[in-house]
């Protein structure tokens, strides 16, 4: 998952980014003003945008309006110091999905971010099941037929992303976009290596194909129901 933080308070943005990177292991980009924020949001494929209201150059509500007008569907979580009813109603009506009032709890912010991303992808429960596969987005662990599978952080992130849209084809570029922020050098062969490792770990002892590779198109997570071991 990849998150954009539009916040002019550098230290705050850094803290939120660190929490999101360390916690759910998301890729995070930071924009220091409204203009950069709107630019990045329009171009990057973000799974969530965290937007401060008081921003230089373009104000938060204007950024929000601009994004929604351009058809940007990513959920937007607003950070605001003004928690009056009227301003919140106005915010939600103009396309925000949720808000947290300053000063907020970092843990709560992270939980809301996770929930919003899940909801944005049409998943309601933090425990995602695809056939026998269980992806626990709270504990960040994966079980296959009740057996826990040890995954590296990147492998987990790939699987988590795929599990949010099962049976949909996810392109390699899309995976790259959603898993890495600007600070990373991206190489598609890195993804290939991670996917093949992931496949090997999931397929331990079995013949099932969890992650299909559609040549030239991308990857697809297919639901497999493992038959009971004799």
């Amino acid at each position: 998952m990849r998150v954009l933080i539009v916040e002019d308070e550098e230290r705050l943005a850094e803290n939120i980014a660190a929490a999101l990177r360390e916690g759910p292991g998301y890729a995070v980009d930071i924009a220091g003003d409204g203009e950069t924020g709107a630019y990045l949001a329009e171009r990057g494929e973000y799974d969530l945008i965290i937007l401060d209201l008081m921003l230089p150059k373009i104000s938060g509500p204007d950024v929000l309006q601009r994004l929604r007008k351009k058809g940007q569907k990513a959920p937007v979580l607003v950070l605001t110091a003004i928690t009056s009813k009227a301003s919140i109603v106005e915010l939600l009506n103009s396309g925000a999905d949720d808000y947290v009032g300053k000063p907020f709890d970092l843990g709560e912010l992270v939980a809301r971010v996770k929930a919003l991303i899940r909801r944005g992808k049409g998943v309601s429960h933090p425990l995602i099941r695809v056939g026998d596969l269980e992806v626990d987005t709270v504990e960040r662990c994966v079980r296959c037929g009740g057996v826990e599978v040890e995954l590296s952080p990147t492998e987990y992130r790939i699987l988590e992303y795929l599990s949010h849209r099962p049976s949909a084809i996810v392109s390699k570029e899309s995976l790259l976009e959603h898993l890495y922020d600007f600070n990373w050098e991206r190489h598609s062969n890195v993804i290939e290596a991670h996917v093949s490792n992931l496949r090997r770990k999931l397929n331990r002892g079995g013949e099932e194909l969890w992650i299909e590779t559609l040549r030239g198109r991308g990857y697809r997570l297919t639901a497999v129901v493992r038959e009971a071991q004799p």
Partner: protein
Amino acid sequence: MKPYSLTRRLVVTVLLVELMLAAAATGLALLYERQQNLHAFDLMLRGRADSLLGAVQDAEDAGDNVMLDPKALDLPRGDLYGVRNESGRVVGSSSNWNHAVEQAVGEQGSGRNFRLGKKWYRGLALHGVRQIDIGDQKPGIARPVVIFYASSLKPFWAAMSHAAKFLVISNFLILLFTAGTLFILLRRGMAPLQELAGAAAGISSNALQFRAPPDAFAVQELAVLAHALESAMSRLEKAFVQQQIFVHDAAHELKTAVTIIKSSLQLLTSRKRTAAEYERGLELCLSDCARMEDLVQKLLLLARVEQPREEQVTASETNLNECLREVAEQMEPLATVRGVKLAVNLEESATARIAFDDCATLATNLMVNALQHTPAGGIVMLRVQASRGMTSFRVEDSGEGIPKEDLPRVFDRFYRGDPSRSRNTGGAGLGLAICKALAEGAGGQIEITSEVGRGTIAEVTLPASDEGRITRPLQEVLSDR
């Protein structure tokens, strides 16, 4: 003091005056009435005496005397009369005739009041001549007689009391009518005042807007009050709104500062970390705290310098050169770090009416601003100029300048010309607001001119002597913003 009703007071005053006038008018009218009545009474007495004279007849006796034959007369009973001939003999009288009447009335022809027993009478004496023995050719014998006639004053008094009653009652009715009319008129006249009071009563700290009712402007006396109230309230509202904005902004800044510290600490405790990570995290928290401290200090300073100061006991003569030299020395390390040249040009003997610390704060803020907005290799100049009554110093930089559209707002509290930059340098956007308040508090002014790409000039003008110093009231300072 107990409050009193203006309406009641006015009504009572008018009624008292009217009562006095009515009493005087009644008195005069009664006096006149009395005069008239007495005159009429006298005429009546004379008439009756005349008819009595007509009843004096020849006695047909040897002495050619006269006698009174009142049989044919219809004189009211109770009247007193007596006729005396020239020899002093009473030739005829009423049955109740009394000699005392004669004495009381006297010989004069005009009426005179007297008392007989318990009754008051008025009487007069009529000197008449009766001709008797009038033949065809010869003149008769003239017999002069004196007729005393008196009548009871009862009818006179009755008429007088009647007149008095009439006057008193009619005056009373007029008074009543006046009171009622006056009350209604005053009530109606006071209505705009009541309305104004009602409108003023609607003012509260939540609703400071005040519009005087149009009726209040229709009344000349009230229009002044209404105007004064309206303008006072609008000034108050402006100041109040400014204050609210300030509090709102300050709360926002503080909330953000708290959020940063809180998130830093929560991030640090979100999982087990190495000692080095903790150390680094705590260092960051400390620097966050320092920023918040700086913000609070600046807010307090702003609150202090924006206090209306009627008498500035603390304001003293400050040697501008000394103060600015000290500031420049403190700025030297920052200039070195940023690679900016600092040029100081100070004149001798320049003094200003400002507290030393205030002047130092002013200069420091301006210098820091200039240094932060000047790229390496640039130059910041500090110079002092003294002219008649005023001393000024300017801070010039060769920085990026301020866009024209931002210039009017640079003195606004929490305004940051270039947020990303000033955030990085820890500015809260209060520096210039503090400078403005300090300069204006000392009776001076501050001006900023700038050209994008060429640099910015901040000029502070301060009064050099006592005469030039004007302490502006807070209200005015606030309304400027």
